């Protein structure tokens, strides 16, 4: 009967959707929320040499920061702040949260250079990704995150320091503004709110 | 006696109570820690009105919604100006809260505005007094919150660069943070705020006047005003009170530059909370200093009716630039407090005196004809004689004898010459009426005296005689010595 065929087809569809790869497919083709920064199509290259857009981060809560490797003053402190956050995460959170770092410096911070940087700072675990991009991509991301930056005359960048937390869909849910901030709120958010 | 003692004791008791409570003023830490109960939206008022006193005894969460609106409005008659306002008026809305309150502040920048704006409230402890958290583009809103750690009357103003311009365009107002126990009750409360204004054209130049940064930097305002426009507190806008009421003025000064010497002509400030502080009262102050970015609270009982003029006592600001307001007090007069003018007397020390008449700069050519004498004489009369003998020679009954159809005058020309040249005192009878006054001697030229007498004789039904300079010279009398005090004078 047509009705039974239909019923069987539905069961098949539902069970297929229930399987993991197709769940991933379903996730992919769910619309990205209108207020998510993952709507951006700006291209980036990871320190592993992969070309991605921001939506590659979709599916896990993400801690985002922008810096550049030749920055001597504040960027090392930013890394410490990020590591302080990581330290405060529960085991479960640690397994889910990813750290995405984007460089201001399109010319010096090539993927290879970023890989070197990651290694020398012991940040080459699976949860840490460094990204290199062209000027247009850097500008767009900074604008999306509300980060001010300016290329200085003698090289180097003048930039604000904001650590941003995105939910699994790329919506900004928290900003940790300024260096050396006590990350209690950020850690609490990552540990509790995102995991249910 | 008994009555006075009681009121004195009452006054002392009140003073003691105020002083005692001030010694226990809450500290910033106490206010920081005071727990919040409930929530309310602040009642904001336009000047010169003030929101009602706080009656609650607990700290609460207060939501303040303040909108910035750029408008074109009247600066003076025929003079328009682009004001930037908090709430549509200059000064901006009056905010009234209590120490310990938690304020959730919404700064709303109207989408029609061109400029970004923010706010620095002097009641806020924290970056920029709120300015750091509130820079807002047109069509957007910023929200921040603060705890009122200190009581006092505080200025708020815009702090967006160029700051002087934002303030000069009217972006200032007052926020009152009441002490825990509140302020003593009064009959009337008013909101007065001074500001200096700088226009491209001078004071009074008509039309839409743009802001002049050059004059602002030189601190040379064209207008110094209470409540944002010339005459805002006069005429229909006058503050009013009734005799016997206590009036409290919350006075602010937005500047941007000038310090105010605030004074109410005809009144004394019984109490002043100097600089808007809540813990120390000064009594019996005539003029109190209100710096730009500062405030004062003045309080006084109005004892007798009058129009009390509020001024900045740097007086050309009041009389030439507009720093004038009015408090109109109505009710029964108290003549003991102020009698008004009781009498108007003649004051003439040492008998008659020579009055140097108004002389023209150039010596006029001698009058040759009677017509000329009359014409010249009329001018002399108008300049010198009208005050007493009046325009048509009618004089003033019981004071100054008439010259019109005067029997005294017409009877004796020589006597008339002697009267003008030498003066006259004592009792005279003119046209049936007795006069007992003093006419001074006149140090006029013989020509002038001849002309004025000819004029008088030719006017108002008199005999039409002519008097010549030679006749004056021949018959002039010396000014009389001081006579004995006339019996009937008073």
């Amino acid at each position, binding site marked *: 009967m047509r009705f039974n065929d239909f019923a069987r087809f539905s069961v098949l569809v539902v069970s297929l959707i229930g399987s993991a790869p197709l769940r991933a497919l379903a996730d992919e083709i769910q619309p990205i929320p209108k207020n998510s920064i993952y709507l951006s*199509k700006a291209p980036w290259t990871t320190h592993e040499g992969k070309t991605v857009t921001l939506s590659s981060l979709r599916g896990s809560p993400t801690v985002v920061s922008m810096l550049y490797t030749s920055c001597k003053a504040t960027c090392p402190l930013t890394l410490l702040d990020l590591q302080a956050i990581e330290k405060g995460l529960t085991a479960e959170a640690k397994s889910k949260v990813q750290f995405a770092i984007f460089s201001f410096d399109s010319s010096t911070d090539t993927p290879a250079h970023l890989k070197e940087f990651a290694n020398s700072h012991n940040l080459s675990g699976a949860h840490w990704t460094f990204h290199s991009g062209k000027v247009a991509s850097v500008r767009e991301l900074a604008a999306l995150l509300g980060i001010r930056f300016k290329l200085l005359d003698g090289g180097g960048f003048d930039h604000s320091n904001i650590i941003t937390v995105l939910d699994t869909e790329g919506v900004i849910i928290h900003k940790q503004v300024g260096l050396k901030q006590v990350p209690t709120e950020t850690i609490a958010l990552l540990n509790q709110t995102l995991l249910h | 006696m008994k009555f006075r003692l009681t009121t004195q004791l009452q006054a002392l008791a009140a003073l003691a109570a105020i002083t005692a409570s001030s010694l226990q003023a809450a500290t910033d830490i106490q206010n920081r820690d005071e727990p919040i109960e409930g929530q309310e939206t602040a009642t904001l008022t336009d000047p010169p009105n003030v929101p009602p006193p706080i009656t609650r005894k607990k700290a609460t969460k207060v939501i303040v919604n303040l909108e910035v609106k750029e408008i074109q409005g009247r600066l003076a008659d025929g003079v328009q100006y682009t004001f930037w306002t908090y709430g549509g008026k200059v000064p901006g809305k009056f905010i009234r809260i209590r120490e310990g309150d938690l304020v959730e502040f919404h700064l709303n920048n109207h989408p029609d505005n061109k400029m970004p704006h923010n706010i620095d409230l002097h009641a806020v402890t924290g970056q920029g007094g709120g300015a750091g958290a509130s820079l807002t583009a047109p069509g957007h809103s910023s929200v921040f919150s603060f705890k009122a750690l200190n009581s006092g009357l505080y200025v708020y103003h815009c702090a967006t660069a160029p700051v002087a311009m934002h303030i000069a365009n009217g972006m200032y107002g007052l926020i009152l943070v009441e002490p825990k126990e509140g302020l003593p009750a009064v009959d009337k409360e008013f909101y007065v705020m001074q500001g200096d204004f700088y226009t491209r054209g001078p004071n009074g130049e008509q039309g839409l006047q743009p802001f002049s940064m050059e004059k602002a930097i030189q601190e040379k305002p064209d207008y110094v005003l209470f409540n944002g426009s010339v005459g805002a507190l006069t005429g229909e806008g006058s503050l009013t009170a009734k005799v016997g009421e206590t009036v409290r003025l919350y006075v602010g000064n937005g500047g941007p530059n000038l310090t105010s010497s605030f004074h109410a002509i005809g009144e004394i400030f019984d109490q002043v909370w100097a600089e808007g502080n809540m813990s120390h009262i000064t009594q019996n102050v005539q003029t109190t200093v209100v710096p730009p970015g500062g405030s004062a609270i003045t309080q006084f009982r109005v004892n007798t009716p009058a129009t009390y003029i509020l001024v900045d006592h740097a007086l050309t600001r009041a009389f030439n630039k507009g720093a004038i307001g009015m408090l109109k007090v109505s009710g029964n007069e108290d003549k003991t407090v102020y009698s008004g003018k009781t009498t108007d007397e003649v004051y003439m020390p040492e008998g008659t005196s020579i009055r140097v008449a108004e002389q023209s700069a150039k010596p006029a050519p001698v009058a040759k004809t009677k017509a000329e004498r009359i014409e010249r004489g009329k001018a002399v009369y108008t300049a010198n004689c009208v005050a007493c003998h009046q325009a048509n020679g009618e004089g003033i009954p019981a004071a100054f004898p008439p010259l019109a159809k005067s029997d005294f005058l017409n009877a004796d020309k020589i006597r008339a010459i002697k009267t003008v040249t030498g003066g006259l005192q004592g009792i005279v009878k003119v046209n049936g009426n007795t006069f007992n006054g003093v006419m001074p001697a006149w140090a006029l030229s013989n020509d002038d005296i001849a002309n004025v007498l000819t004029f008088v004789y030719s006017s108002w039904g008199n005999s039409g005689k002519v008097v010549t300079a030679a006749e004056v010279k021949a018959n002039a009398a010396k000014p009389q010595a001081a006579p004995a005090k006339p019996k009937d004078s008073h």
Partner: protein
Amino acid sequence: MFIVHINLLPFLLPYLSPTVAAAQAIETVAPQKNHPTAVVIKGGTYRPFYRPRLSESDKRIVVKSFELDAHPVTNQDYLEFVKKNTQFTRSQIGRVFAEDTYLKHWQTDHTLKNEKELKQPVTHVSWFAATAYCQWLGKDLPTTDQWEYALDDVGRSAKATKAAILKWYSVPNNQELGQIGQHKANGYGVHDLVGLVWEWTQDFNNSATSAELRSDGTKDENLFCASGSLNAVDSSDYVKFMRFSFRGSLQAAFTTANLGFRCAKELTP
């Protein structure tokens, strides 16, 4: 369970189709002709308004020759862009790229309210939208330095500029927006840099280090890397303060009734 399956199917069908509803591209369809004429701004040295140290206040920077649109982008221009790039229509654009006041002055996604708007500068556009438009034409937003350099006009039209600025900045926005090109161009041939609308620049907020912009020059080392403090070279140039304050109050997704843009292009050497 049966009922649940029935309900799921219609829900799933749209997503089984190849078209992905939410994808938004920055790369867009190639443009047509009829775009605002551009003029060449000859390069030179220029004294920027904000410097890291006041001791450098006379320091001049080099601005290379570049091309700048002679007029702000109009509603007509922008309409063409939107028609060819549907993800920038009012009903489709991601909130993250433009807040909900985007193009609110238009009648519909693709129509204006009246003919007059055709030649008025487009407003209610965000930085992302403005950037996308310029990149669609192979150009970019001018940098703040380029924009201010063009306005400076090597001092040629200082008087006229100041008069236009004073007039516009001090009158509230209750009048209809003017059309482009109604006033004389400056020495470079550029019209309406002031007097019509504020304009987006590439780096609109990087010169402001403090949100309150009282230009007290204090460093905020926790917030900003490197110099972190910028000082205005001429604190009596209050009109420049107004422009920089305005830019500093903006975020990239903002739109306002008084903010438009024009495009610039680097000249190939």
